[in-house]
């Protein structure tokens, strides 16, 4: 058991740290969920890509560095420590790309990955529907076969689609076999959000910004070449995304360690003993998350997979994120309600226990798949 980085990993760390120190914008960019901020963040992605820092874990043939998992975590630590901008390309590079690598055709890989790596094309995820949230498999949006044109015709409605307000393309599941039940008969589609028949209606989030949107589909044609994986196999294909989202890729420990360090600094400036425990606990939990991640990385590197441990992870980081920001607001006292980086972080953190599968669903998964408790009898099916 050891936590030492190898010489190569240390060299990688130094290179990342030096590049970030020289290039991270001194002033925070405007929010990526505004028109102006979206473009500014795309420009930042271009800068990252030019120096081959945008997708470090990808193969070199797609502008990556073939970074190991350890190096990826190291990069993320450096990234957040440097206070670098949020990743507007996150849905694509972290959620969709692993699926394109695993299930995409070589033609799809060549067509979609390069613009994803540069941030030129930003992706929105289209999972939830008005009547299918936690119970995603009950989704009703349809895909009708069109043999004549060699593709599918999409109809229905998606909602809470992250980044859809400004993004260029979307990915999501549609029911391609109307007779199949729940997880069967779903197909994974990729589609341009400016296609004929698609209407995107931005939704203002709690903070007023249009971080997500409703997406309406009215006879939208998608060619066979934009189906990811086999028709009818969409659930299995999509669930590899869900594992990524809950697990490592969306929430690297660097983000929480950097925030916890800033919280300690804030306490140093405004030491109020009433909130000392909150500061210490946030720091301890950020360290716990960092060390836990090294354990996960070791297991994955040895060929294991995240499995249901992704759910353990998701509940922990989402609750840590809220507690950490609540403590910062406590320390700010009456200033807490005034716009600040802490307030932005707090508002964002409130979405954590809801998206990527609510924490109630995650606790069910932990209880049933890790502790082996009996499944709860399900309600009547539609």
């Amino acid at each position, binding site marked *: *058991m*050891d*936590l*030492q*980085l*190898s010489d190569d*990993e240390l060299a990688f760390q130094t290179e990342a740290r030096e590049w970030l120190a020289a290039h991270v914008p001194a002033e925070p960019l405007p929010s990526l969920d505004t028109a102006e901020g979206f473009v500014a963040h795309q420009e930042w992605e271009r800068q990252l890509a030019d120096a081959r820092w945008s997708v470090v874990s990808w193969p070199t043939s797609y502008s990556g560095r073939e970074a190991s998992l*350890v190096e990826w975590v190291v990069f993320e630590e450096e990234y957040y420590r440097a206070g670098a901008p949020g990743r507007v390309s996150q849905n694509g590079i972290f959620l969709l790309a692993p699926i394109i690598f695993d299930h995409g055709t070589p033609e799809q890989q060549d067509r979609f990955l390069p613009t994803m790596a540069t941030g030129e094309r930003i992706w929105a995820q289209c999972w939830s529907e008005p009547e299918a949230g936690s119970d995603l498999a009950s989704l009703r949006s349809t895909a009708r076969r069109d043999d004549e044109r060699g593709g599918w015709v999409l109809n229905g409605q998606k909602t809470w689609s992250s980044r859809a307000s400004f993004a260029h393309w979307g990915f999501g599941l549609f029911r391609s076999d109307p007779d199949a039940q729940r997880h069967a008969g779903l197909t994974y589609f990729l589609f341009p959000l400016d296609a004929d028949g698609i209407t995107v209606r931005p939704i203002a989030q709690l903070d007023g910004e249009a971080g997500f949107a409703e997406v309406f589909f009215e006879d939208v044609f998608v060619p066979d070449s934009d189906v990811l994986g086999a028709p009818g196999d969409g659930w299995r294909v999509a669930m590899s995304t869900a594992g990524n989202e809950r697990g490592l890729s969306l929430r690297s420990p660097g983000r929480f360690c950097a925030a916890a360090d800033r919280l*300690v600094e804030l*306490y*140093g400036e405004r*030491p109020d003993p009433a909130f*000392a*425990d909150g*500061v*210490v*606990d946030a*720091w*301890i*939990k950020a*360290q*716990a*998350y960092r*060390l*836990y991640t*090294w*354990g996960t*990385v*070791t*297991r994955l590197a*040895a060929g294991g997979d995240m499995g249901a*441990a992704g759910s*353990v992870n998701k*509940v*922990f980081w989402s609750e840590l994120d809220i507690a950490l920001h609540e403590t910062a607001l406590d320390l700010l006292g009456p200033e807490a309600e005034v716009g600040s980086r802490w307030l932005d972080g707090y508002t964002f953190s409130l979405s954590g226990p809801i998206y990527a599968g609510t924490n*109630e669903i*995650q*606790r*069910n998964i*932990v*209880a*049933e798949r*890790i*502790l*082996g*408790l*009996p*499944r*709860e*009898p399900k309600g009547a099916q539609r």
Partner: protein
Amino acid sequence: MRFVLDEDQRDFAAALESLLAASDTVAVARAWADGDHEPGRKLWGRLAELGVTSLATEATPVEVALAFEALGRYAVPGPWVESAAYLPTALGREVDGIATLALPPHVPYALDADVADEVYVGSTPGAEVGDRVTSVDRTRHLFRVTGDGETHDDAFDLAVLATSAQLLGAGERVLADAVTYVKQRKQFGREIGSYQAIKHALADVRIALDFARPLVFGAALGEVPASAAKVAAGDAAYLASRTGLQVHGAIGYTQEFDLSLWLTKIRALVTAWGTPAFHRARLLDGLVG
């Protein structure tokens, strides 16, 4: 970078596990609580043969943490933290036989001074043993002692680590027993473990223990202060004990039911070797300076 146990460490943990699983440690603990130390002394001897008492001087803190996690999981009674973590580090040598100590203010009483061959205050032997006081944990026989002694910082940190590991093991045991129980117990025609109220409570225990473990072993590797491990393991084990009691219902509230051994031990260990408040304050001092 490999944050998992290596093969030797796994073998050692497995050897401890098989020894303890075959030792009816519940009976040992109950006898110890009633003042019959014989079974406990025999078990002490077998664990010493396996090397538990020489880990502090001859192995690394990782092995110490592994051993104490097992001692916690099996509710093994006796002044183990004192004899196998604090004193060997403070004295720079393995302890002969069973020894114990007090270290005011964090360790105000000497644990099991009636069994110990030598009683210290800090690193000073020959402490005078006074009255016994009653612990919430019937297997912990606490004694007032008089004498003076300094705190050895490294020894204190190893004792804190060992206590954290014991809490981790005790918490894991309570969770395992609670899971077994809620899969058997039926009410309203269903296993109570199929209700979300029960599932979510036990899932929270699983999550708390999963994130306490890397702090315990991270502290063993010197990545974080031992205080961080103590706070997290104490919180997680205490959550396990409260939840474990609640899902068992009235049977869990009896002394006769074995769960009581762990519920009372966890309560005692949460404040042993530095209270959570002390360790939080110590961490904050280190962070803010």
